[in-house]
């Protein structure tokens, strides 16, 4: 009997997953599943990953593609090219492109568009029609198509009643509700973090209470209703304290932190470059240090990029005229390895294992690398240094908040369902 030859073997790497760290080859079979883990494996395609880390693929809970509607800024294809180059094998696409995903029809059209994706795209639906915060969208119709993530993005003026009803109504779909934590009013004209720098520059600020008030409200309602709630892009330690308290009281609340919120400070805004205009805004060094501490202490559930590509000419505008947003897939691992003082397992937990659980993707992604699992894998060199350059990244827009920064940690290969989509940093499609 002839057993089918392995398709790929990753040779000489170090596997890190939930069960620990071990040196072994990983083989992928013709069916795209992990076929063998062990010594001296062979295959049609042997990839030398000596000295590198083999991890399960990263999972981004917060990705913005501008498709459908604003394809000039990003498409699902260009966005996922960037995602796989950043080591991501699954991302959740937020329903806030120009055409908001608040109906089964739009969901179907996005499903079609996802055929162009280079990694798994989990489509999220809007919680409220048009992201207006008023009327609940047809969640059941979207759920019937398999949607399990529903989102009310940043800057929605929500009322307590609608939020409560959505949290109650959605539970029969075993859905997770994702919320951006911004009440709206403070934000309406604010351009950056409110504080010493905004005062000096005369730029209208957004106080941290814009976030904390909303975090408190959402945690209270999550507790009240028992809904599964995930809070997006939490940027200050007071918010984390409120969430940790709610978690301790039994609320099913998780949250994510963006790489720039534990890496960069508002001092960058003094350059007046619009690439530093992001939401929630960059904050103080003190705040950044506190976020790092919370990450080190294991208080944070996930790192999520909030990746959003803007057309370059829009980011070339003066600070106050430019749109918010930064690309983020290709700098997430680098930011984590460069700015966090954590063991690799801790960082992979934040980038892959825990977000896979939150997204309900544990069957195919996350913290276990064993025979029979789909080959969703990321291989990287955690020590190799590089300099972030937006124009060398795969997104349509090249405005990156990490521009010009030296980082460590380079993704060499990404496998999606057992297929090598990135080899030595080069996209294979």
């Amino acid at each position, binding site marked *: 009997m002839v057993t089918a030859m392995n398709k790929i073997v990753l040779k000489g790497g170090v596997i890190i997953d939930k069960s620990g760290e071990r040196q072994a080859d990983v083989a992928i079979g013709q069916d795209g599943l992990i076929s063998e883990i062990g010594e001296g494996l062979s295959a049609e395609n042997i990839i030398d990953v000596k000295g590198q880390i083999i991890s399960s693929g990263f999972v981004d809970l917060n990705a913005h593609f501008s498709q459908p509607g604003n394809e000039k800024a990003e498409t699902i294809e260009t966005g996922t090219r960037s995602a796989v180059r950043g080591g991501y094998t699954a991302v959740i696409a937020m329903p806030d492109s120009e055409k908001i995903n608040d109906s089964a029809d739009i969901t179907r059209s996005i499903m079609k568009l996802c055929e162009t994706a280079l990694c798994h795209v989990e489509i999220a639906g809007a919680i409220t029609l048009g992201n207006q915060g008023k009327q609940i969208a047809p969640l059941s119709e979207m759920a019937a198509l398999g949607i399990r993530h529903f989102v009310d993005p940043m800057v929605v003026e929500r009322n307590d009643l609608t939020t409560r009803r959505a949290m109650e109504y959605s539970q029969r779909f075993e859905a997770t509700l994702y919320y951006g934590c911004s009440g709206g009013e403070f934000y309406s004209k604010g351009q950056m973090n409110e504080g010493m720098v905004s005062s000096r520059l005369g730029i209208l600020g957004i106080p941290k209470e814009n976030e904390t008030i909303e975090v408190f409200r959402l945690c209270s309602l999550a507790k009240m209703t028992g809904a599964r709630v995930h809070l997006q892009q939490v940027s200050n330690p007071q918010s984390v304290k409120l969430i940790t308290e709610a978690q301790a009281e039994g609320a099913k609340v998780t949250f994510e932190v963006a790489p720039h919120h534990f890496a960069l400070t508002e001092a960058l805004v003094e350059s007046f470059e619009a690439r530093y205009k992001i939401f929630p805004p960059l904050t103080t060094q003190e705040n950044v240090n506190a976020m790092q501490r919370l990450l080190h202490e294991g208080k944070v559930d996930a790192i999520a990029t909030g990746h959003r590509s803007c057309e370059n000419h829009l980011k070339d505008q*003066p600070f106050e005229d430019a749109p918010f947003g930064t690309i983020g897939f290709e700098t997430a691992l680098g930011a984590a390895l460069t700015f966090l003082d954590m063991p690799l397992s801790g960082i992979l937990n934040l980038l892959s294992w825990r977000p896979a659980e939150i997204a309900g993707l544990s069957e195919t992604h996350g913290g276990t690398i064993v025979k029979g699992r789909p080959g969703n894998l990321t291989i990287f060199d955690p020590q190799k240094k590089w300099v972030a350059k937006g124009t060398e990244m795969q997104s349509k827009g090249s405005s990156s908040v990490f521009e010009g920064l030296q980082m460590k940690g380079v993704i060499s290969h990404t496998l999606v369902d057992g297929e090598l989509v990135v080899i030595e940093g080069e996209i294979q499609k």
Partner: protein
Amino acid sequence: MKSKHIRGIDDLGKEGIQEILSLSDHFFEVSTRRIPKVPALRGRTIAWLFYENSTRTRLSFETAAKRLSADSMNFSVSSSSVKKGESLRDTVETVSAMGVDAIVVRHSSTGVPWLLPKWTDASIINAGDGAHEHPTQSLLDCYTIQKQFGDIEGKKIVIVGDIKHSRVARSNILAFKTMGAEIVLVAPRTLLPVDTSSWPVEISEDLDRSIADADVVYMLRMQLERQKEAFVPSLREYTNDFGLTLERAQKLPKHTIIMHPGPMNRGVEIASDVPELDNAVVTNQVSNGVIVRMAVLYFLLGSGAELSEDGNSNE
């Protein structure tokens, strides 16, 4: 090293400010001549890029340029390609390609003068960016104060009003401090920036007490829309507590001068008859504006040689 640009007060420092003030003395002399014009910047081209409405600052700059015999290129934002969606970058690169030595820019967005050198080699002069800086206003204010008192150092300058939204206040605080003045800001908390802990100023909400021993009372324009945005309950209440009423003005020490960057809202931050008082120097500020802007343009674009022969430079 002398700065190539005047984007903010920090581009100048004390030495730069002093040099401009002493150049201003020279141009003051020029302004008293029968024909107040010199060929100092002949052959130099200055472009005006005013993205925000401005009559006073713009006229002041244009007059200054004419008196220095500079050519000017007027990019009228309201009737030009900008209205058709041209970006700032494209506009600046276009103007620059035509050949300009300096660009005077006003823009509603903070920081624009700092972005421009990416797209042009011209010297940049900030004529106001957002609520951030307005350095030539501060230079003319420094000149006005120095002319009045001989020196700015040690003077007590009280700035009153909407500091939060004021680029004049931000530049003035930097400039007055650089020149050694003592600064007091008077405003309701809602019209102060949120965090002034690092500012070299004293802050007060008691106007009467603060101006009792002031050398300069500097009133800021109160935008009428601040009332709608809930910064103050009513303009009447604002005028009561923070306006320079005639009564307050008459109680000021004899030597105290009253300043205002204009345009004034008579009856709001400054009572109707106050600008006519002897110690109000508002019109001096305006005439000094032209002189100081001549000094600014000459400081950045002049070679020094033209001035040494100024005695026979009239033509």
